[in-house]
């Protein structure tokens, strides 16, 4: 899927097929790639992800931090770069999960290496300390913005 002479670059903007590659990552001419370097720390073409975890309420603050630190080392070891975790604190859940009505919410941003996402998701799924987790890819313009509100319901 490199430059194809039969497939000129300046057409087909509604196609989802990446038309050329930049540093191994497919880019499409429809998406501006240059000019976003100012919102990113270093390289312009690294995706930022965001993970949100709900840690079980039986732990205390320190154990929660240890749990999160474990996931941060996984991110770092697999070639990503973990940002500072944002602890929302203990919050009431909107509905019961596994007979629990509250949990510790932790949100953190990170960049992923090749194996990071697979490995992180696998370990999150099997770890008993985490009730729920979600990993979301952030749009390039949104990454590294101040995160909204911390705990609102200190249940």
């Amino acid at each position: 899927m490199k430059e194809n002479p039969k497939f000129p670059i300046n057409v087909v903007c509604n196609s989802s097929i990446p038309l050329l590659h930049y540093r191994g990552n497919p880019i499409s001419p429809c998406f501006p790639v240059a000019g976003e370097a100012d919102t990113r720390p270093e390289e312009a073409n690294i995706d930022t992800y965001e993970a949100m975890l709900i840690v079980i309420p039986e732990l205390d603050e320190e154990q929660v931090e240890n749990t999160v630190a474990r996931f941060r080392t996984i991110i770092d070891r697999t070639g990503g770069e973990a940002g500072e975790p944002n602890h929302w604190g203990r919050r009431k859940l909107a509905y019961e999960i596994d007979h629990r009505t509250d949990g510790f919410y932790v949100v953190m941003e990170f960049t992923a290496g090749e194996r990071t996402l697979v490995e992180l998701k696998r370990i999150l799924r099997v770890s008993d300390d985490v009730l729920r987790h979600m990993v979301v890819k952030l749009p390039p313009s949104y990454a590294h913005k101040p995160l909204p509100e911390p705990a609102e319901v200190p249940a």
Partner: protein
Amino acid sequence: MGKRRTGPPRGVRPTKSKPCVFCKENVAYVDYKDYNVLRRFISDRGKVRARRVTGLCPQHQREAASAIKRAREMALLPYVVGR
């Protein structure tokens, strides 16, 4: 050619166009973590409100709906209220 038009149907109010709240604030990404903002777009039963109620533009309605679904998954918003 064909049918005779008799003006607009009765009982239709003239529409006042009101810009979508996300467009007005230049929101590029509807964040699922802003559950307090998303609350405005669900009914008191917890259902996603229709576009004619929320007044969002098609793009932002779609993004808001998926943000609500993400927030539900993380127990920030309820799936059902009052069961």
